[in-house]
């Protein structure tokens, strides 16, 4: 089996989910499952007017690529795309996309889940809130739950 090279993009612009699925599946007859995860900006019951995503250029691409390569090593995938936006994002807009393609569904589900858990705790992005009432927004606090979610994918040390 030829090595799958993940597509990783860090961009300010929006993405088109259907186009990204088509990019992985076009001309292929061996893919039986495509799982997509889209992360969107919430307004937190009207409290937020936007989220501003700061990132570490260079490391953001490198770290997501490292996580994507680990997913390809762990699951039999036939395609993998990860797109993460930066800059100011309004409620209802896309923030992040993972598309995982495989012959059977379980690998695609697990890989997409793993990608998101790892990305949350290791990809160098930081969210700042913009409040609807114009008051100074805060930096979003990291959640312990996200670290725990990433920990469940840790493999036992190889003997």
């Amino acid at each position, binding site marked *: 089996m030829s090595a799958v090279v993940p597509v990783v993009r860090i961009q300010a612009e929006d993405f088109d989910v259907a186009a990204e699925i088509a990019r992985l599946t076009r001309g292929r007859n061996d893919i039986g499952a495509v799982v997509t995860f889209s992360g969107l900006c919430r307004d937190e019951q009207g409290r937020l007017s936007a989220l501003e995503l700061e990132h*570490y250029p260079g*490391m953001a691409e*490198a770290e997501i690529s490292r996580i994507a390569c680990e997913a390809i090593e762990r699951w039999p995938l036939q395609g993998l795309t990860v797109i993460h936006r930066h800059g100011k994002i309004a409620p209802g807009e896309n923030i992040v996309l993972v598309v995982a393609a495989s012959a059977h569904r379980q690998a695609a589900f697990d890989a997409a889940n793993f990608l998101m858990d790892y990305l949350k705790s*290791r990809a160098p992005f930081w969210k700042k809130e913009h409040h609807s009432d114009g008051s100074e927004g805060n930096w979003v606090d*990291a959640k312990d739950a*996200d670290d725990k979610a990433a920990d469940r994918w840790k493999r036992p040390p190889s003997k």
Partner: protein
Amino acid sequence: MSTKLIYFAWVRERIGRPEEEVELPAGIETVADLLRWLKSRGEEYENALQYPDVIRVAINQEHVEHHEKIAGAREIALFPPMTGG
């Protein structure tokens, strides 16, 4: 040899600049040493690095733990826990 330090999110805001070039004094061997030294450089650093345990560090764009050595680092980034995704 000078080292480039880069700051993100509230670490950047509290220190008051996105990056700087520094000459590391002798004896700064680990990430923990670096954080201790930076914290002593003034009020804004003290404010940003008040709780060094929460600060995440990357050397040459890869995550490192605080006990790791910084020898050969061209670029060291300091930032809060990440909140992407």
